[in-house]
Protein backbone atom coordinates (compact mmCIF):
# COMPACT_ATOMS: atom_id res chain seq x y z
CA UNK A 1 0.00 0.00 0.00
CA UNK A 2 1.37 3.36 -0.96
CA UNK A 3 1.52 5.53 2.13
CA UNK A 4 3.15 8.52 0.52
CA UNK A 5 2.38 11.60 2.48
CA UNK A 6 1.01 14.60 0.66
CA UNK A 7 1.24 18.03 2.13
CA UNK A 8 -1.59 20.42 1.58
CA UNK A 9 -4.51 21.97 3.36
CA UNK A 10 -5.94 18.57 4.22
CA UNK A 11 -2.90 17.05 5.86
CA UNK A 12 -1.04 19.25 8.30
CA UNK A 13 2.46 17.82 8.43
CA UNK A 14 4.08 19.17 11.53
CA UNK A 15 7.33 17.26 11.47
CA UNK A 16 10.98 18.09 11.03
CA UNK A 17 13.62 15.82 9.62
CA UNK A 18 17.32 16.61 9.45
CA UNK A 19 20.08 14.43 8.00
CA UNK A 20 23.69 15.40 8.09
CA UNK A 21 22.80 19.04 8.56
CA UNK A 22 25.86 21.28 8.45
CA UNK A 23 26.74 24.93 8.72
CA UNK A 24 30.17 26.50 8.39
CA UNK A 25 31.15 30.14 8.53
CA UNK A 26 34.44 30.79 6.68
CA UNK A 27 36.38 28.04 8.36
CA UNK A 28 34.40 27.80 11.57
CA UNK A 29 32.05 24.82 11.70
CA UNK A 30 29.08 25.78 13.81
CA UNK A 31 27.03 22.66 13.07
CA UNK A 32 28.97 19.56 12.11
CA UNK A 33 26.44 17.23 10.60
CA UNK A 34 23.44 16.56 12.82
CA UNK A 35 20.54 14.16 12.42
CA UNK A 36 17.24 14.51 14.20
CA UNK A 37 13.59 13.81 13.69
CA UNK A 38 10.74 15.67 15.35
CA UNK A 39 7.29 14.10 15.30
CA UNK A 40 4.09 16.05 15.04
CA UNK A 41 2.65 17.25 18.31
CA UNK A 42 5.70 16.68 20.45
CA UNK A 43 7.87 19.11 22.32
CA UNK A 44 11.43 18.57 21.14
CA UNK A 45 14.42 20.17 22.80
CA UNK A 46 18.00 21.00 21.96
CA UNK A 47 19.90 21.12 25.21
CA UNK A 48 23.45 22.37 25.35
CA UNK A 49 25.77 25.14 26.48
CA UNK A 50 26.21 28.46 24.69
CA UNK A 51 28.10 28.00 21.46
CA UNK A 52 26.93 24.42 20.95
CA UNK A 53 25.25 25.26 17.64
CA UNK A 54 21.66 25.21 18.89
CA UNK A 55 20.77 28.69 17.70
CA UNK A 56 22.38 28.08 14.32
CA UNK A 57 20.32 24.92 13.97
CA UNK A 58 17.14 26.82 14.86
CA UNK A 59 18.01 29.51 12.32
CA UNK A 60 18.40 26.87 9.64
CA UNK A 61 14.93 25.64 10.51
CA UNK A 62 13.31 29.04 10.15
CA UNK A 63 15.36 30.22 7.22
CA UNK A 64 17.57 32.86 8.80
CA UNK A 65 20.62 30.79 7.95
CA UNK A 66 21.14 28.68 4.85
CA UNK A 67 22.74 25.30 5.56
CA UNK A 68 26.07 24.54 3.94
CA UNK A 69 25.22 20.87 3.65
CA UNK A 70 22.85 18.08 4.54
CA UNK A 71 19.08 17.78 4.36
CA UNK A 72 16.43 19.56 6.35
CA UNK A 73 12.71 19.22 5.80
CA UNK A 74 10.22 21.30 7.77
CA UNK A 75 6.55 20.32 7.54
CA UNK A 76 7.60 18.01 4.75
CA UNK A 77 9.15 20.79 2.65
CA UNK A 78 12.88 21.12 2.11
CA UNK A 79 14.44 24.36 3.31
CA UNK A 80 16.56 24.88 0.20
CA UNK A 81 13.57 25.36 -2.07
CA UNK A 82 10.47 26.14 -0.08
CA UNK A 83 11.47 28.68 2.52
CA UNK A 84 8.51 30.97 1.96
CA UNK A 85 5.98 28.21 2.28
CA UNK A 86 7.69 26.89 5.38
CA UNK A 87 7.56 30.32 6.97
CA UNK A 88 3.85 30.40 6.44
CA UNK A 89 3.50 27.28 8.56
CA UNK A 90 5.82 28.00 11.41
CA UNK A 91 6.06 30.55 14.18
CA UNK A 92 9.34 31.79 15.59
CA UNK A 93 10.12 33.10 19.05
CA UNK A 94 13.63 34.52 18.70
CA UNK A 95 16.24 34.85 21.38
CA UNK A 96 16.35 38.62 21.16
CA UNK A 97 13.43 40.92 21.76
CA UNK A 98 12.57 42.44 18.39
CA UNK A 99 9.13 43.80 19.13
CA UNK A 100 7.92 47.02 17.54
CA UNK A 101 8.62 49.29 20.52
CA UNK A 102 6.81 52.25 19.01
CA UNK A 103 3.57 50.32 18.85
CA UNK A 104 1.15 49.08 21.44
CA UNK A 105 0.90 45.43 22.44
CA UNK A 106 -2.10 44.59 20.29
CA UNK A 107 -0.72 46.57 17.34
CA UNK A 108 2.38 44.40 17.37
CA UNK A 109 0.21 41.38 16.71
CA UNK A 110 -1.81 43.15 14.01
CA UNK A 111 1.29 44.28 12.14
CA UNK A 112 2.71 40.79 12.26
CA UNK A 113 -0.51 39.28 11.04
CA UNK A 114 -0.21 41.45 7.92
CA UNK A 115 3.05 39.82 6.93
CA UNK A 116 1.09 36.60 6.52
CA UNK A 117 -1.58 38.30 4.42
CA UNK A 118 -4.21 37.35 6.97
CA UNK A 119 -7.54 39.18 6.73
CA UNK A 120 -7.75 41.93 9.37
CA UNK A 121 -10.88 40.60 11.03
CA UNK A 122 -9.21 37.25 11.53
CA UNK A 123 -6.06 38.85 12.89
CA UNK A 124 -8.04 40.98 15.32
CA UNK A 125 -9.91 37.98 16.63
CA UNK A 126 -6.78 35.88 16.91
CA UNK A 127 -4.91 38.72 18.58
CA UNK A 128 -7.55 38.93 21.28
CA UNK A 129 -7.51 35.18 21.81
CA UNK A 130 -3.73 35.04 21.92
CA UNK A 131 -3.43 37.92 24.37
CA UNK A 132 -5.92 36.11 26.54
CA UNK A 133 -4.03 32.83 26.17
CA UNK A 134 -0.74 34.47 27.14
CA UNK A 135 -2.40 36.40 29.96
CA UNK A 136 -1.72 39.79 28.44
CA UNK A 137 -5.29 40.96 27.80
CA UNK A 138 -5.02 43.75 30.32
CA UNK A 139 -1.98 45.09 28.52
CA UNK A 140 -3.50 45.16 25.04
CA UNK A 141 -3.35 48.94 24.86
CA UNK A 142 -0.10 49.35 26.74
CA UNK A 143 3.08 50.29 24.92
CA UNK A 144 5.79 47.70 24.68
CA UNK A 145 8.06 49.87 26.83
CA UNK A 146 5.71 49.49 29.76
CA UNK A 147 5.98 45.72 29.77
CA UNK A 148 8.22 43.71 32.05
CA UNK A 149 10.74 41.27 30.59
CA UNK A 150 8.43 38.34 31.18
CA UNK A 151 5.51 40.10 29.50
CA UNK A 152 7.62 40.98 26.49
CA UNK A 153 8.57 37.35 26.14
CA UNK A 154 4.93 36.30 26.35
CA UNK A 155 4.10 38.87 23.70
CA UNK A 156 6.82 37.41 21.48
CA UNK A 157 5.23 34.00 21.92
CA UNK A 158 1.75 35.37 21.18
CA UNK A 159 3.16 37.03 18.08
CA UNK A 160 4.72 33.77 16.93
CA UNK A 161 1.26 32.18 17.05
CA UNK A 162 -0.61 34.79 15.00
CA UNK A 163 -0.56 32.65 11.87
CA UNK A 164 -1.72 29.54 13.76
CA UNK A 165 1.50 27.69 12.92
CA UNK A 166 1.93 23.94 12.96
CA UNK A 167 5.39 24.21 14.44
CA UNK A 168 6.65 26.79 16.90
CA UNK A 169 10.40 27.32 17.14
CA UNK A 170 11.64 28.87 20.38
CA UNK A 171 15.25 29.89 20.87
CA UNK A 172 16.05 30.08 24.59
CA UNK A 173 12.49 31.02 25.57
CA UNK A 174 13.09 31.80 29.23
CA UNK A 175 16.65 33.10 29.33
CA UNK A 176 16.86 36.22 31.45
CA UNK A 177 13.45 35.77 33.07
CA UNK A 178 12.84 35.65 36.80
CA UNK A 179 11.51 32.33 38.17
CA UNK A 180 7.90 33.47 38.31
CA UNK A 181 7.93 34.64 34.69
CA UNK A 182 9.68 31.47 33.68
CA UNK A 183 7.05 29.25 35.26
CA UNK A 184 4.27 31.15 33.56
CA UNK A 185 5.93 30.70 30.17
CA UNK A 186 6.41 26.99 30.82
CA UNK A 187 2.77 26.69 31.75
CA UNK A 188 1.68 28.38 28.52
CA UNK A 189 4.04 26.26 26.42
CA UNK A 190 2.64 23.11 27.95
CA UNK A 191 -0.83 24.35 27.06
CA UNK A 192 0.37 24.73 23.47
CA UNK A 193 1.58 21.15 23.30
CA UNK A 194 -1.73 20.06 24.74
CA UNK A 195 -3.37 21.71 21.72
CA UNK A 196 -1.31 19.50 19.45
CA UNK A 197 1.25 21.99 18.22
CA UNK A 198 4.79 20.84 17.65
CA UNK A 199 7.33 22.76 19.71
CA UNK A 200 11.03 22.88 18.99
CA UNK A 201 13.09 24.72 21.54
CA UNK A 202 16.65 25.31 22.58
CA UNK A 203 17.78 25.80 26.12
CA UNK A 204 20.74 25.56 28.41
CA UNK A 205 18.53 25.04 31.45
CA UNK A 206 18.26 21.43 32.49
CA UNK A 207 15.05 22.04 34.36
CA UNK A 208 13.39 23.55 31.31
CA UNK A 209 14.38 20.63 29.14
CA UNK A 210 13.24 18.10 31.72
CA UNK A 211 9.90 19.78 32.33
CA UNK A 212 8.86 20.68 28.82
CA UNK A 213 10.42 18.25 26.40
CA UNK A 214 8.97 14.93 25.35
CA UNK A 215 12.26 14.18 23.68
CA UNK A 216 15.50 16.05 23.44
CA UNK A 217 18.97 15.94 22.03
CA UNK A 218 22.09 17.15 23.77
CA UNK A 219 24.32 19.31 21.62
CA UNK A 220 27.91 20.24 22.16
CA UNK A 221 30.50 21.70 19.84
CA UNK A 222 28.20 21.49 16.82
CA UNK A 223 27.33 17.83 17.28
CA UNK A 224 24.51 15.87 18.84
CA UNK A 225 26.06 13.70 21.50
CA UNK A 226 22.95 12.02 22.92
CA UNK A 227 19.21 11.89 22.43
CA UNK A 228 16.02 10.44 23.85
CA UNK A 229 13.35 11.21 26.39
CA UNK A 230 14.63 12.89 29.56
CA UNK A 231 14.06 9.67 31.44
CA UNK A 232 15.89 7.56 28.86
CA UNK A 233 18.86 9.90 28.84
CA UNK A 234 19.20 9.77 32.58
CA UNK A 235 18.78 6.00 32.80
CA UNK A 236 21.23 5.44 29.98
CA UNK A 237 24.04 7.68 31.10
CA UNK A 238 24.01 8.15 34.85
CA UNK A 239 23.09 6.36 38.03
CA UNK A 240 19.74 7.43 39.44
CA UNK A 241 20.96 8.86 42.74
CA UNK A 242 23.45 11.61 43.34
CA UNK A 243 25.21 12.68 46.49
CA UNK A 244 26.87 16.08 46.43
CA UNK A 245 29.59 16.48 48.99
CA UNK A 246 30.84 19.94 49.86
CA UNK A 247 33.92 20.22 52.02
CA UNK A 248 37.29 21.89 52.09
CA UNK A 249 39.83 20.87 49.46
CA UNK A 250 41.76 18.59 51.81
CA UNK A 251 38.61 16.89 53.06
CA UNK A 252 37.51 16.18 49.50
CA UNK A 253 40.89 14.67 48.70
CA UNK A 254 40.63 12.48 51.79
CA UNK A 255 37.13 11.45 50.80
CA UNK A 256 38.00 10.35 47.27
CA UNK A 257 39.16 6.78 47.93
CA UNK A 258 36.08 5.89 49.96
CA UNK A 259 33.70 7.41 47.47
CA UNK A 260 35.42 6.08 44.38
CA UNK A 261 35.23 2.54 45.64
CA UNK A 262 31.56 2.73 46.62
CA UNK A 263 30.08 4.88 43.86
CA UNK A 264 29.43 3.96 40.23
CA UNK A 265 30.82 7.24 39.01
CA UNK A 266 32.45 10.30 40.47
CA UNK A 267 32.72 13.87 39.15
CA UNK A 268 34.72 16.74 40.55
CA UNK A 269 32.99 20.00 39.67
CA UNK A 270 35.22 22.26 41.66
CA UNK A 271 37.84 22.28 44.33
CA UNK A 272 35.31 21.78 47.07
CA UNK A 273 32.53 19.83 45.41
CA UNK A 274 32.37 16.10 44.77
CA UNK A 275 29.52 14.38 42.99
CA UNK A 276 28.98 10.68 43.55
CA UNK A 277 26.59 8.65 41.42
CA UNK A 278 25.12 5.47 42.78
CA UNK A 279 22.20 3.09 42.85
CA UNK A 280 22.33 2.93 46.61
CA UNK A 281 22.83 6.25 48.34
CA UNK A 282 22.49 4.84 51.82
CA UNK A 283 25.34 2.38 51.31
CA UNK A 284 27.52 5.15 49.96
CA UNK A 285 26.73 7.40 52.87
CA UNK A 286 27.73 4.62 55.23
CA UNK A 287 31.11 4.38 53.52
CA UNK A 288 31.57 8.11 53.85
CA UNK A 289 30.73 8.02 57.55
CA UNK A 290 33.13 5.14 58.04
CA UNK A 291 35.91 7.11 56.43
CA UNK A 292 35.61 9.65 59.22
CA UNK A 293 36.14 12.62 56.93
CA UNK A 294 34.36 15.77 58.05
CA UNK A 295 31.96 16.74 55.27
CA UNK A 296 30.44 20.21 55.67
CA UNK A 297 27.43 19.64 53.54
CA UNK A 298 25.85 16.67 51.82
CA UNK A 299 23.02 17.00 49.38
CA UNK A 300 21.04 14.05 48.14
CA UNK A 301 19.15 14.36 44.88
CA UNK A 302 17.93 12.46 41.86
CA UNK A 303 20.12 12.50 38.80
CA UNK A 304 19.08 15.00 36.16
CA UNK A 305 20.01 16.11 32.66
CA UNK A 306 22.75 18.33 34.03
CA UNK A 307 24.42 15.17 35.27
CA UNK A 308 23.98 13.49 31.89
CA UNK A 309 25.71 16.45 30.24
CA UNK A 310 28.47 16.40 32.83
CA UNK A 311 28.98 12.69 32.31
CA UNK A 312 29.15 13.02 28.54
CA UNK A 313 31.32 16.08 28.28
CA UNK A 314 33.04 16.64 31.61
CA UNK A 315 31.60 20.17 31.66
CA UNK A 316 28.52 21.70 33.18
CA UNK A 317 25.73 23.17 31.08
CA UNK A 318 26.00 26.64 32.54
CA UNK A 319 29.56 27.93 32.46
Amino acid at each position, binding site marked *: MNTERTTGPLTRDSTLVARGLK*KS*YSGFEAVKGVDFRVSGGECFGFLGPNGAGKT*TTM*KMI*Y*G*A*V*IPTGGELAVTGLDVYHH*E*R*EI*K*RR*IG*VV*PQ*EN*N*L*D*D*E*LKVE*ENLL*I*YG*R*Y*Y*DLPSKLVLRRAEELLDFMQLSEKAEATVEQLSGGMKRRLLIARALI*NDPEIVVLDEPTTGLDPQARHLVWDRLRALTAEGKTLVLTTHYMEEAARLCDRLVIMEGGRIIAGGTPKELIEEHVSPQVLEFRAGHDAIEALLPAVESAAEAVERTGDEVLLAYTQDADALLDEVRKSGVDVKNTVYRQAGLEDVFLRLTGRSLIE
Partner: protein
Amino acid sequence: MRGAFRVWQRNVTIFRKFWISGLFPNFIEPLIYLAALGLGLGAFIQQGGISGQSYVQYIGPGLLASNAMFAASFESTFNTFVKLRFDKIYDGIITTPVNAEDVIAGEYLWAGTRAALYGTGFLGMLIALGTAFGQPLVTSWWALLIPPMLLAIGIMFSVLGTLFTSLIEHIDLFAYYFTLVVTPLFLFSGIFFPVENFPAPVPQVAWFTPLYHAVNVCRELATGPSVGVLVDVAWIFVFTAALALIPVQIMRRRLIG
Protein backbone atom coordinates in the same frame (compact mmCIF):
# COMPACT_ATOMS: atom_id res chain seq x y z
CA MET B 1 5.86 42.26 -3.89
CA ARG B 2 2.92 41.94 -1.51
CA GLY B 3 5.55 41.60 1.17
CA ALA B 4 7.07 44.96 0.26
CA PHE B 5 3.67 46.55 0.66
CA ARG B 6 3.37 45.03 4.14
CA VAL B 7 6.71 46.47 5.15
CA TRP B 8 5.59 49.83 3.76
CA GLN B 9 2.36 49.50 5.74
CA ARG B 10 4.26 48.94 8.95
CA ASN B 11 6.11 52.20 8.41
CA VAL B 12 2.86 54.03 7.73
CA THR B 13 1.36 52.67 10.96
CA ILE B 14 4.29 53.92 13.00
CA PHE B 15 4.51 57.18 11.04
CA ARG B 16 0.95 58.06 11.95
CA LYS B 17 2.01 58.36 15.56
CA PHE B 18 5.04 60.51 14.93
CA TRP B 19 4.39 62.51 11.77
CA ILE B 20 4.34 65.82 13.58
CA SER B 21 7.94 65.56 14.74
CA GLY B 22 8.89 64.80 11.16
CA LEU B 23 7.50 68.15 10.11
CA PHE B 24 10.44 69.93 11.63
CA PRO B 25 13.35 68.61 9.60
CA ASN B 26 11.25 68.04 6.51
CA PHE B 27 9.16 71.15 6.37
CA ILE B 28 10.12 73.88 8.82
CA GLU B 29 13.80 73.62 8.00
CA PRO B 30 13.56 74.23 4.25
CA LEU B 31 11.22 77.12 5.03
CA ILE B 32 13.94 78.63 7.15
CA TYR B 33 16.44 78.25 4.31
CA LEU B 34 13.96 79.87 1.96
CA ALA B 35 13.48 82.80 4.27
CA ALA B 36 17.09 83.27 5.32
CA LEU B 37 18.78 82.78 1.99
CA GLY B 38 15.95 83.67 -0.31
CA LEU B 39 15.10 86.94 1.31
CA GLY B 40 18.32 87.63 3.17
CA LEU B 41 20.80 86.79 0.45
CA GLY B 42 18.31 87.67 -2.21
CA ALA B 43 18.39 91.27 -1.10
CA PHE B 44 22.01 91.44 -2.28
CA ILE B 45 21.43 89.92 -5.66
CA GLN B 46 21.01 92.41 -8.44
CA GLN B 47 17.77 93.23 -10.04
CA GLY B 48 16.91 90.70 -12.69
CA GLY B 49 17.95 88.02 -10.29
CA ILE B 50 18.92 84.77 -11.86
CA SER B 51 17.62 84.40 -15.40
CA GLY B 52 14.78 86.79 -14.76
CA GLN B 53 13.64 85.31 -11.47
CA SER B 54 14.06 86.82 -8.04
CA TYR B 55 16.37 84.86 -5.78
CA VAL B 56 13.50 83.47 -3.76
CA GLN B 57 11.81 82.30 -6.92
CA TYR B 58 15.08 80.69 -7.98
CA ILE B 59 15.83 78.69 -4.89
CA GLY B 60 12.26 77.72 -3.95
CA PRO B 61 11.75 74.81 -6.33
CA GLY B 62 15.35 73.71 -5.83
CA LEU B 63 14.68 73.30 -2.13
CA LEU B 64 11.85 70.93 -3.00
CA ALA B 65 14.39 68.55 -4.46
CA SER B 66 16.89 68.85 -1.62
CA ASN B 67 14.10 68.37 0.87
CA ALA B 68 13.26 65.06 -0.75
CA MET B 69 16.92 64.15 -0.61
CA PHE B 70 17.22 64.87 3.10
CA ALA B 71 14.01 63.08 4.00
CA ALA B 72 14.93 59.95 2.06
CA SER B 73 18.54 60.07 3.23
CA PHE B 74 17.72 60.17 6.92
CA GLU B 75 15.14 57.45 6.53
CA SER B 76 17.50 55.13 4.63
CA THR B 77 20.51 55.75 6.83
CA PHE B 78 19.84 56.26 10.52
CA ASN B 79 16.33 54.82 10.64
CA THR B 80 17.24 51.79 8.58
CA PHE B 81 20.41 51.15 10.54
CA VAL B 82 18.55 51.27 13.85
CA LYS B 83 15.91 48.87 12.55
CA LEU B 84 18.61 46.58 11.23
CA ARG B 85 21.16 46.57 14.04
CA PHE B 86 19.53 47.68 17.24
CA ASP B 87 15.85 46.88 17.12
CA LYS B 88 16.42 43.83 14.93
CA ILE B 89 13.13 44.50 13.21
CA TYR B 90 14.22 43.01 9.89
CA ASP B 91 15.36 39.80 11.58
CA GLY B 92 11.85 39.43 12.91
CA ILE B 93 10.18 40.18 9.60
CA ILE B 94 12.18 37.62 7.65
CA THR B 95 10.91 34.79 9.84
CA THR B 96 7.57 35.43 8.10
CA PRO B 97 6.80 34.90 4.40
CA VAL B 98 8.12 38.44 3.80
CA ASN B 99 11.74 38.03 2.73
CA ALA B 100 14.79 40.28 2.64
CA GLU B 101 14.12 41.55 -0.89
CA ASP B 102 10.60 42.53 0.13
CA VAL B 103 11.93 44.35 3.16
CA ILE B 104 14.34 46.50 1.18
CA ALA B 105 11.81 47.23 -1.56
CA GLY B 106 9.29 48.23 1.09
CA GLU B 107 11.82 50.52 2.73
CA TYR B 108 12.69 52.16 -0.61
CA LEU B 109 9.02 52.79 -1.20
CA TRP B 110 8.54 54.18 2.26
CA ALA B 111 11.46 56.59 2.10
CA GLY B 112 10.09 57.78 -1.24
CA THR B 113 6.63 58.17 0.27
CA ARG B 114 7.98 60.22 3.14
CA ALA B 115 9.86 62.43 0.75
CA ALA B 116 6.76 62.88 -1.38
CA LEU B 117 4.43 63.52 1.55
CA TYR B 118 6.43 66.23 3.23
CA GLY B 119 7.58 67.53 -0.14
CA THR B 120 4.03 68.01 -1.30
CA GLY B 121 3.27 69.88 1.89
CA PHE B 122 6.27 72.08 1.20
CA LEU B 123 5.10 72.59 -2.38
CA GLY B 124 1.75 73.74 -1.08
CA MET B 125 3.56 76.15 1.23
CA LEU B 126 5.67 77.49 -1.66
CA ILE B 127 2.54 78.18 -3.70
CA ALA B 128 0.86 79.86 -0.77
CA LEU B 129 3.85 82.02 0.10
CA GLY B 130 4.46 82.97 -3.50
CA THR B 131 0.91 84.10 -3.92
CA ALA B 132 0.91 85.94 -0.62
CA PHE B 133 4.06 87.88 -1.39
CA GLY B 134 3.34 88.53 -5.01
CA GLN B 135 6.37 86.57 -6.20
CA PRO B 136 4.90 83.39 -7.55
CA LEU B 137 7.26 80.49 -6.88
CA VAL B 138 5.24 78.04 -8.93
CA THR B 139 3.90 79.22 -12.25
CA SER B 140 2.97 76.14 -14.20
CA TRP B 141 0.32 73.44 -14.07
CA TRP B 142 3.10 70.96 -14.73
CA ALA B 143 3.83 71.36 -11.06
CA LEU B 144 1.11 68.76 -10.46
CA LEU B 145 3.69 66.21 -11.58
CA ILE B 146 6.07 67.26 -8.83
CA PRO B 147 4.62 64.97 -6.11
CA PRO B 148 5.11 61.77 -8.16
CA MET B 149 8.57 63.00 -9.13
CA LEU B 150 9.35 63.57 -5.47
CA LEU B 151 8.42 59.94 -4.89
CA ALA B 152 10.90 58.91 -7.56
CA ILE B 153 13.56 61.26 -6.21
CA GLY B 154 12.96 59.92 -2.71
CA ILE B 155 13.35 56.34 -3.90
CA MET B 156 16.54 57.29 -5.71
CA PHE B 157 18.10 58.72 -2.56
CA SER B 158 16.78 55.83 -0.53
CA VAL B 159 18.64 53.45 -2.82
CA LEU B 160 21.82 55.47 -2.37
CA GLY B 161 21.40 55.73 1.40
CA THR B 162 20.52 52.06 1.80
CA LEU B 163 23.61 51.13 -0.20
CA PHE B 164 25.78 52.99 2.28
CA THR B 165 23.87 51.58 5.25
CA SER B 166 24.24 48.02 4.01
CA LEU B 167 28.02 48.37 3.97
CA ILE B 168 28.76 49.89 7.36
CA GLU B 169 29.07 48.35 10.80
CA HIS B 170 29.00 51.44 13.02
CA ILE B 171 26.38 54.13 13.14
CA ASP B 172 28.97 56.90 13.46
CA LEU B 173 30.12 56.25 9.91
CA PHE B 174 27.04 58.05 8.64
CA ALA B 175 28.87 61.27 9.43
CA TYR B 176 30.97 60.52 6.34
CA TYR B 177 27.91 60.04 4.21
CA PHE B 178 26.30 63.28 5.23
CA THR B 179 29.45 65.36 5.11
CA LEU B 180 31.01 63.93 1.97
CA VAL B 181 27.95 63.06 -0.08
CA VAL B 182 24.78 64.77 1.04
CA THR B 183 26.13 68.19 1.93
CA PRO B 184 28.25 68.69 -1.20
CA LEU B 185 25.25 67.61 -3.26
CA PHE B 186 23.10 70.11 -1.41
CA LEU B 187 25.51 72.93 -2.16
CA PHE B 188 26.65 72.12 -5.68
CA SER B 189 23.50 71.00 -7.46
CA GLY B 190 22.26 74.35 -8.60
CA ILE B 191 19.89 75.14 -5.77
CA PHE B 192 21.54 78.32 -4.51
CA PHE B 193 23.52 79.29 -7.59
CA PRO B 194 23.88 77.91 -11.09
CA VAL B 195 26.77 75.47 -11.39
CA GLU B 196 27.07 76.25 -15.10
CA ASN B 197 29.15 79.30 -14.23
CA PHE B 198 31.87 77.27 -12.58
CA PRO B 199 35.01 76.37 -14.54
CA ALA B 200 35.25 72.88 -15.98
CA PRO B 201 35.03 70.18 -14.73
CA VAL B 202 32.53 71.29 -12.08
CA PRO B 203 29.44 71.51 -14.28
CA GLN B 204 30.37 68.27 -16.00
CA VAL B 205 30.85 66.42 -12.72
CA ALA B 206 27.58 67.86 -11.42
CA TRP B 207 25.78 66.34 -14.37
CA PHE B 208 26.72 62.92 -13.02
CA THR B 209 25.27 63.56 -9.57
CA PRO B 210 21.68 62.77 -8.58
CA LEU B 211 20.53 65.97 -6.93
CA TYR B 212 21.49 68.08 -9.96
CA HIS B 213 18.85 66.34 -12.03
CA ALA B 214 16.31 66.30 -9.23
CA VAL B 215 16.69 70.07 -8.92
CA ASN B 216 16.29 70.55 -12.65
CA VAL B 217 13.14 68.48 -12.72
CA CYS B 218 11.54 70.37 -9.85
CA ARG B 219 12.53 73.76 -11.23
CA GLU B 220 11.32 72.96 -14.74
CA LEU B 221 8.02 71.48 -13.59
CA ALA B 222 7.41 74.45 -11.33
CA THR B 223 7.96 77.03 -14.03
CA GLY B 224 7.06 75.27 -17.24
CA PRO B 225 9.35 72.55 -18.58
CA SER B 226 11.36 72.41 -21.72
CA VAL B 227 11.89 69.11 -23.52
CA GLY B 228 15.25 68.83 -21.79
CA VAL B 229 13.53 67.85 -18.58
CA LEU B 230 13.00 64.40 -20.05
CA VAL B 231 16.74 63.86 -19.92
CA ASP B 232 16.77 64.66 -16.21
CA VAL B 233 13.82 62.37 -15.56
CA ALA B 234 15.43 59.57 -17.50
CA TRP B 235 18.70 60.10 -15.63
CA ILE B 236 16.89 59.65 -12.32
CA PHE B 237 15.19 56.44 -13.39
CA VAL B 238 18.30 54.91 -14.91
CA PHE B 239 20.45 55.79 -11.91
CA THR B 240 17.90 54.32 -9.52
CA ALA B 241 17.38 51.16 -11.54
CA ALA B 242 21.11 50.60 -11.94
CA LEU B 243 21.79 50.73 -8.21
CA ALA B 244 18.56 49.41 -6.70
CA LEU B 245 19.43 45.73 -6.55
CA ILE B 246 22.87 46.13 -5.01
CA PRO B 247 21.74 46.99 -1.47
CA VAL B 248 19.15 44.23 -1.75
CA GLN B 249 21.87 41.64 -2.29
CA ILE B 250 24.11 43.03 0.42
CA MET B 251 21.31 43.30 2.97
CA ARG B 252 20.12 39.81 2.15
CA ARG B 253 23.57 38.49 2.96
CA ARG B 254 23.66 40.46 6.18
CA LEU B 255 20.29 39.19 7.35
CA ILE B 256 20.74 35.58 6.26
CA GLY B 257 23.96 33.83 7.17
